[in-house]
C-alpha cells in the first residue's frame, strides 16, 4: 500500500492556449462525426486519436483497446477570441481596476501600499474594485478612464460622453484580451492573481480544448442509429460556426456579418461551458430539452460531486413499504418471501456444512412457501466463476460442490440484516434486526421500534441491507443490533418502548385495583413466556382471583425495586403516596407492583423509567425481552375491554354546555369592557409596553383563561370512561388541550404569537366593522370542533393552521442544512484510547470527551451515575 502523503499545497490556475495545444493530440476541423460506413472522420469530433469507445478499434494515440484507453484531448482553433463565461466577473474587475490605455493598476504605489501593507508587514489583503475611485485619471499615463459596463452574460462596453449624451461603445473579446495581456505581472500579484499559473488573458479563449470521446460517448439506439452525447452536439455547433466565421473572414465579409458570427460563436461557446447562464437562452435539443453541458455535469444533486462521488448505489439491498406487526419481537423484522428469495448470503463450503449446502443448491432458487427450506441462487467455483442455479442444473451443480466453493444461499429466519429509514439523522436510524420471512409484500416491524426510525405506517418505505461477510455480521450483531440501541446517546434514556396502544393498554390494565378470574388472567398472559401463575391474590366465593397488578408483575424481573410517579401525577402539594386517588404513585417492591399505574413514564419510548432501570440492572437483552413482554401484555389488555373513540365521545350534557356558554359570553363581555376602558384612554399600560400592547396581552389572557375554563368544564364531565381522556392521562396520545378543543372551545388563533391582525384596512375580513377589536373579529373561535366552526372562524383557523405548516417546512430545511454542515465538520473526529477527542491527524479537539469523559448513551439522562436510582433500588424506599 502506498504510504500516506501530506499535501503541501494546492495550486489553482488557468490553462494557457499553449498548454491546451501541447496537451492536444489532434486539431479538430470537421463538424461531422462518422462517415456513411460508421467510421470516424479524421480530424472530426470522433477522431480516433481522441480515444476509442467502439470495441475492436484501437486508439491511434496510445494504441490501447476501448476499455484501457483513457482518452486524449484535441483542440479547436477559434477564428476570433471569445470570453469564458466562468470568468466574466474576474474580467469585469480587471477591466475596472486597470487603465484603458496602459493597462497598469489605477493606483499609485502609495495607494497600493495602503491596502496591502508594506513589504515586510503585509496585511494579507488584496485589491478589490472598491479600492478604485470611479472615472479617474490613470496615475501612470494620465489617460481619462471610462465607466465599464457589463451586461450578462458576456457583453462588456465602455460608456463615453459625447455632446452631453451617453454613448455605449462595445468592447470585442479581442479588445478585452489585448487589454488583459498588457497588465503587468507585478500588478496582478496585488490583485491576488499568480501570473505564473493564471495570466488574465487566458480567460478569453483563443483555442478550445475538445474533451476525449470517452467522456462523451455516443450510444447506438435499438434501430441502429447513433445518438451523440450533448457535449458532442454542442461541439458540432461550435465547429460549424467557427468554419463559417473563418470563411467569411477570409472572403472579407462586411463588419456587420462578422460581428453577428462572432456573437453566435460566443453564444455557442458560452452554452457549451454552462447552459444555465442568466440572460442567455439555454441551447436546446431538437426535442426541446435543454442540453446538459459541462457545468451541468458537475452541478447539483445528480452532478458529479453529490451524485457520483459522494453518493453511490449498493447491491444486496431492498426497499418496500412498511407495516406494523405487534406479534413480532422488537429485534425482528418481517421480510416478504419475494425479497428473501432474491437476496443472498455467500457461504463457504466446508466439510462441516457441505451436506446442508448441497441440499440448498438442490432446492434451487424457487421457494414458494414460508415452510419450504431456503435454497440458493448462485454458486461460485474456486476460480471465481459464478454459476446461476436454475431448474435444469440443480443436481449437476449440487453434485460438484466441494470445499473451496461458495454457495449464495437465500435469506432465512434468524439471519441478521440492517434496517434503515431516511433521513438517517442519528445512529438508531440504522439498526440490525433478525429476519422473519413472511407472506405479503411489505416489511413488517414491531410498532415499538417506530420512535428510533421516526417511522409510521402512512406509506413510509424502508431499506434493508444484507451484510455479506462474517465481520459485517459480527459488527451488526454486536454494535448495530436493536438490543444495543435501546438507549439513545441523545439523552441517555431508552428510545425504544411502548407507544400509543401499548400505553393505553397497560394503563387500562394497571389503573386502580381490578381482579381477574383464572381464565381472564391467562387470556392476558397468553403471549408471555411464564412457567406458572403466581399464587392468587384473593379468593372470592371460593373462586381464586388475581389482581391486575399481579398480572403486570409477572413480566417484571424478580429483584426490581423502584419508586416513581406516573404521568397521571398532578404534583399535589402533599403527596398521598400509596393512597393517591389517581393511583399515580408507582412502587415496585422485589418485582411486585405494589401500587400505582403503569403508563408512559414507566414504559414509554423516551421516558420509560422501568425500561431504563432494567437496562441498568440487567442489561439491554433483558430490556428487549421486557419491551416484547410489555407490548404483548398491553395488546392483550387493550383487547380485553376494547378501546374505541367516536364522535359521541365528545358529547357533554346540557348543564356543561350552559356553563361553557356562560364562561365564553362572560369572557367576550370582559374583552369588550377592557376595549372600552382602552378607548376611553383609561387603560393603565404595563411597564415597558404601549397601551395597545397592554390591551392585546389582556385580551389574549382573558380569552386563553376562558378556553381553559371550558376545558375544565368538559373534563369534569368526561372521566376515565372516555377513551380520549385515557389516552391523554396515560400519555399515549393527545392532551387535555386537544380534548378541550374538541368538546369545549377551540380558542384563539394566532399568527406569530399575536391575534390575527392582517387582512383589509383596519379589519381582518369585510364581515367586521373597521377598528373592531372584539374577540371574534381577530380570530377567537368560541365553538368546538364537535359543534362546528362558523365561516369566519373557519377562515381564521386556516390562517393559524397555515402558519404551523410553513413553520415545519422552514424548520426541516434549515435544520437539515445545519446538521449537514455539522456532520461535515465533525465526521472524522474520534475518541482516542486515552479519552481525548482527536482528528485523524492526531490533533486534540477535547482533552477529555465532553470534559467528563462520559459516554452519553451510558449516562442516566446526562448524569454519569444514577445515584438516586441506585439508592432507591437498594433501600427499596423513596429518597
Amino acid at each position, binding site marked *: 500500500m502506498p504510504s500516506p502523503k501530506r499535501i503541501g499545497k494546492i495550486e489553482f490556475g488557468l490553462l494557457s492556449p499553449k498548454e491546451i495545444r501541447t496537451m492536444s493530440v489532434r486539431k479538430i476541423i470537421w463538424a461531422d462525426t462518422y462517415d456513411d460506413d460508421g467510421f470516424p472522420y479524421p480530424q472530426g469530433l470522433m477522431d480516433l486519436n481522441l480515444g476509442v469507445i467502439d470495441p475492436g478499434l484501437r486508439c491511434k494515440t496510445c494504441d490501447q483497446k476501448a476499455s484501457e484507453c483513457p482518452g486524449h484531448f484535441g483542440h479547436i482553433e477559434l477564428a476570433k477570441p471569445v470570453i469564458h463565461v466562468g470568468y466574466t466577473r474576474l474580467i469585469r474587475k480587471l477591466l475596472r481596476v486597470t487603465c484603458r490605455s496602459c493597462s497598469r493598476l489605477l493606483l499609485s504605489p502609495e495607494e497600493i501600499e495602503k491596502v496591502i501593507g508594506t513589504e515586510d508587514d*503585509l*496585511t*494579507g489583503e488584496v485589491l478589490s474594485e472598491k479600492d478604485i475611485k470611479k472615472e479617474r485619471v490613470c496615475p501612470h499615463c494620465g489617460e481619462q478612464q471610462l465607466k465599464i459596463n457589463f451586461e450578462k452574460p458576456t457583453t462588456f462596453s465602455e460608456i463615453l460622453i459625447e455632446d452631453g449624451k451617453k454613448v455605449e461603445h462595445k468592447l470585442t473579446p479581442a479588445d478585452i484580451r489585448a487589454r488583459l495581456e498588457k497588465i503587468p505581472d507585478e500588478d496582478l500579484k496585488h490583485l491576488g492573481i499568480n501570473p505564473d499559473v493564471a495570466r488574465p488573458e487566458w480567460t478569453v479563449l483563443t483555442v478550445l480544448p475538445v474533451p476525449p470521446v470517452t467522456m462523451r460517448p455516443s450510444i447506438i439506439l435499438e434501430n441502429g442509429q447513433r445518438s451523440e452525447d450533448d457535449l458532442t452536439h454542442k461541439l458540432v455547433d461550435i465547429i460549424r460556426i467557427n468554419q463559417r466565421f473563418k470563411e467569411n473572414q477570409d472572403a472579407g465579409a462586411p463588419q456587420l456579418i462578422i460581428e453577428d458570427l462572432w456573437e453566435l460563436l460566443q453564444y455557442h461557446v458560452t452554452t457549451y461551458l454552462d447552459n444555465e447562464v442568466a440572460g442567455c437562452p439555454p441551447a436546446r435539443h431538437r426535442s426541446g430539452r435543454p442540453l446538459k453541458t459541462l457545468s451541468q455535469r458537475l452541478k447539483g444533486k445528480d452532478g458529479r460531486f453529490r451524485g457520483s462521488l459522494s453518493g453511490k448505489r449498493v447491491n444486496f439491498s431492498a426497499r418496500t413499504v412498511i407495516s406494523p406487526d405487534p406479534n413480532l419481537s422488537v429485534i425482528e423484522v418481517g421480510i416478504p418471501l419475494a425479497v428473501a428469495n432474491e437476496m443472498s448470503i455467500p457461504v463457504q463450503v466446508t466439510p462441516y456444512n457441505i451436506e446442508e449446502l448441497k441440499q440448498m443448491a438442490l432446492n434451487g432458487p424457487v421457494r414458494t412457501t414460508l415452510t419450504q427450506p431456503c435454497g440458493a441462487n448462485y454458486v461460485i467455483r474456486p476460480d471465481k466463476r459464478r454459476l446461476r442455479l436454475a431448474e435444469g442444473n440443480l443436481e449437476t451443480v449440487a453434485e460438484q460442490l466441494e470445499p473451496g466453493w461458495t454457495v449464495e444461499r437465500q435469506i432465512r429466519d434468524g439471519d441478521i440484516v440492517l434496517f434503515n429509514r431516511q433521513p438517517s439523522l442519528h445512529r438508531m436510524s440504522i439498526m440490525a434486526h433478525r429476519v422473519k420471512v413472511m407472506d405479503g409484500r411489505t416489511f413488517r416491524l414491531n410498532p415499538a421500534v417506530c420512535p428510533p426510525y421516526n417511522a409510521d405506517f402512512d406509506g413510509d418505505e424502508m431499506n434493508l441491507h444484507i451484510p455479506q461477510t462474517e465481520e459485517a455480521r459480527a459488527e451488526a450483531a454486536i454494535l448495530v443490533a436493536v438490543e444495543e440501541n435501546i438507549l439513545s446517546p441523545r439523552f441517555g434514556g431508552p428510545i425504544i418502548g411502548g407507544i400509543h396502544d401499548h400505553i393505553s393498554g397497560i394503563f387500562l390494565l394497571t389503573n386502580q385495583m381490578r381482579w381477574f378470574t383464572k381464565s381472564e388472567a391467562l387470556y392476558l398472559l397468553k403471549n408471555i413466556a411464564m412457567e406458572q401463575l403466581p399464587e392468587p391474590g384473593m379468593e372470592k366465593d371460593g373462586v381464586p382471583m388475581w389482581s391486575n397488578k399481579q398480572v403486570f408483575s409477572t413480566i417484571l424481573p424478580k429483584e426490581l425495586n423502584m419508586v416513581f410517579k406516573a404521568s397521571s401525577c398532578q404534583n399535589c402539594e402533599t403527596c398521598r403516596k400509596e393512597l393517591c386517588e389517581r393511583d399515580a404513585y408507582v412502587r415496585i417492591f422485589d418485582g411486585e407492583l405494589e401500587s400505582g399505574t403503569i403508563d408512559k413514564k414507566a414504559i414509554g419510548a423516551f421516558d420509560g423509567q422501568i425500561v431504563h432501570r432494567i437496562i441498568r440492572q440487567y442489561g439491554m437483552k433483558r430490556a428487549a425481552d421486557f419491551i416484547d413482554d410489555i407490548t404483548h401484555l398491553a395488546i392483550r389488555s387493550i383487547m380485553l375491554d376494547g378501546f374505541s373513540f367516536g364522535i359521541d365521545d365528545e358529547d357533554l350534557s346540557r348543564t356543561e354546555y350552559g356553563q361553557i356558554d356562560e364562561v365564553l359570553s362572560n369572557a367576550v363581555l370582559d374583552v369588550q369592557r377592557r376595549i372600552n376602558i382602552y378607548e376611553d384612554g383609561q387603560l393603565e399600560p404595563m411597564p415597558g409596553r404601549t397601551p395597545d400592547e397592554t390591551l392585546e396581552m389582556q385580551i389574549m389572557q382573558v380569552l386563553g383563561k376562558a378556553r381553559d375554563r371550558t376545558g375544565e368544564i368538559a373534563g369534569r364531565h368526561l372521566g376515565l370512561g372516555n377513551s380520549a381522556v385515557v389516552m391523554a392521562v396515560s400519555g399515549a396520545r393527545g392532551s387535555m388541550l386537544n380534548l378541550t378543543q374538541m368538546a369545549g372551545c377551540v380558542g384563539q388563533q394566532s399568527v406569530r404569537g399575536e391575534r390575527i391582525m392582517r387582512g383589509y384596512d383596519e379589519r381582518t375580513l369585510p364581515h367586521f366593522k373597521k377598528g373592531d377589536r372584539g374577540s371574534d373579529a381577530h380570530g377567537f373561535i368560541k365553538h368546538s370542533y364537535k359543534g362546528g366552526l362558523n365561516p369566519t372562524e373557519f377562515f381564521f383557523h386556516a390562517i393559524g393552521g397555515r402558519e404551523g405548516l410553513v413553520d415545519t417546512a422552514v424548520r426541516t430545511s434549515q435544520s437539515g442544512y445545519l446538521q449537514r454542515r455539522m456532520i461535515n465538520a465533525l465526521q472524522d473526529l474520534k475518541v482516542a484510547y486515552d479519552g481525548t477527542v482527536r482528528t485523524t491527524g*492526531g*490533533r486534540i479537539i477535547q*482533552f477529555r470527551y*465532553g470534559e*467528563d469523559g*462520559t459516554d452519553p448513551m451510558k449516562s442516566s439522562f446526562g448524569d454519569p451515575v444514577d445515584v438516586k436510582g441506585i439508592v432507591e433500588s437498594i433501600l427499596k424506599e423513596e429518597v
Partner: protein
Amino acid sequence: MSTRLNVLDHAMVPDHQIMTKEELTGLLSLYKITSDQLPRIYHDDPAVKTIGAKPGDVIRIIRTSHTAGRAESYRLVIKRPKK
C-alpha cells in the same frame, strides 16, 4: 482610574495561565503529542494579550464545566495568520 477593561475580571472569562517549560513537557508526554497537535489560540486574543503570552507559549485554561465541574484545556498561542 483606568477605564480599560480587564477581560480576566469578567465572570464569563475562565482562568488563563501561561504554562512553564516543565509543565509543557509533562503535558506533551502525557498525551504523546507534539505542541502543534494542541488546540490553538491567536496571540491577539484579549485574554492572551492580558496575561502576556507570546506565540509559542502554551496556555492552561481552567473552566467550570456543566458536565465535569472543572475542566482544564490547553492551547498553543500562535500568530494570527495573514488572510
